[in-house]
């Protein structure tokens, strides 16, 4: 008992050496198989024995599952096991009937994904109509979008960004992997070009709504 405390840390470390990498890989595999939601390397590591390097083990594991019926995919800064998309046809039984999204909701989602962080006014400017509260609520409820930082423009409007859940759902590692993003940017179509004067402003009707949502949201912002 007293011996342990008398000696400095180095000895302790040698007592609890990190398991070999193959074993660490097994551990990551077990943890990932057990969870349905994406889980960060940090969280995985926290559950592994002291001294493990989850990030490295995950790289090995990902390679091991290449071409298999189940893949290790990266979702934002988290990881998850997912069945290979080409085998979807086997899973009719597992298919969950998703709520059919309205055209407005789909377009709003796409605009948020490609233009994020984007304010409600900017979405309205792009779609040319006001965005109904229900549309945004639906996307928030599905956890496909969330509030981002406030914009440093007059009124400090809230912005919307897509979530990890969104990335997971559409099999994206990163919001930068959105299809056609580069081309759209190159074509200048993701720019926020202010209209020259004397143009009718699109979808202005929702001022009060903005104010309403603005309150109480500050807590939701990271940093």
């Amino acid at each position: 008992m007293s011996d342990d405390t008398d000696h400095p840390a180095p000895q302790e470390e040698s007592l609890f050496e990190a398991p070999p990498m193959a074993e660490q890989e097994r551990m990551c595999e077990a943890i990932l198989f057990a969870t349905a939601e994406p889980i960060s390397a940090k969280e995985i590591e926290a559950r592994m024995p002291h001294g493990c390097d989850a990030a490295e083990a995950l790289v090995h594991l990902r390679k091991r599952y290449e071409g298999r019926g189940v893949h290790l995919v990266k979702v934002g800064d988290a990881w998850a096991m997912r069945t290979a998309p080409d085998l979807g046809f086997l899973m009719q039984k597992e298919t969950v009937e998703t709520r059919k999204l309205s055209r407005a909701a789909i377009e709003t989602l796409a605009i948020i994904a490609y233009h994020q962080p984007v304010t409600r006014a900017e979405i309205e400017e792009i779609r040319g109509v006001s965005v109904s509260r229900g549309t945004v609520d639906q996307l928030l409820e599905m956890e496909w979008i969330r509030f981002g930082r406030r914009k440093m423009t007059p009124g400090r409007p809230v912005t919307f960004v897509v979530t990890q859940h969104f990335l997971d759902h559409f099999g994206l590692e990163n919001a930068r992997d959105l299809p056609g993003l580069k081309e759209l940017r190159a074509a200048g179509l993701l720019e926020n070009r202010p209209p020259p004067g004397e143009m009718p402003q699109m979808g202005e009707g929702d001022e009060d709504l903005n104010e309403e949502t603005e309150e109480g949201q500050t807590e939701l912002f990271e940093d």
Partner: protein
Amino acid sequence: MSEDTFEEMGQIESVTDRMAAEALIVDVDGYEGPLDLLLTLSRTQKVDLRKISVLQLAEQYLAFVERAKALRLELAADYLVMAAWLAFLKSRLLLPPDPTEEGPSGEELAAHLAFQLERLQAMREASARLMGRDQLGRDFFARGLPEDVTRIRRVQYTATLLDLMQGYARIRTRDEFRPYAFDREALFTLEQALERMRGLIGFAGTWTDIASYLPDGFTADPARRRSATASTFAAALELTKEGKVELRQSEVFAPLELRRKG
């Protein structure tokens, strides 16, 4: 049967055209605003949106609005706003530019409208591509049998040396041990002041110096007087806030006077 009729008539082209024209009118509510309608109209030009003729588009839109009016269809205000603006744009595009005129030129306005249409079109295509991707729960799947992570809560008890010493002192002094604290005898608390004043304001019909509310035994000793004065003053503010009394002071450093309200 009906297919045969179409073939016989040999007018498929004109029928579909007619149906499209009707659809435009009947489905006016189906459009998501003027921009959406403009985008639909632009398709009849069958050119790249970058090369679109905004003038032609403006004319198409205005014709559409005229038709809708002829059919006595209710058009939302923003459709009419857009119609008015496009009429204005049309005149700007047709007339030679007036150098004295302020603001953006007709070409600039037209270019921005074309940009808006192109951007909306691009977002429509992007959303179609997005929804066309493999989706979780439809094309690929998460673990069907997730295992729960059991949370084990381990309670670790702790104590500090001070706890230990205080514990011992408590026993040795038969429980009459308190951590070091200020001597509170010279203190007249806000609660005490409030209680005292609540009892007394009933008598304060006329303006009275709040100094007269200091309790007995708190006027001679400076420390006690200071504490009582501060608490009484704070209590007076509190009662003023509650609307029970009024406070006044004739000039800086003059005595504060208090009177019952109502």
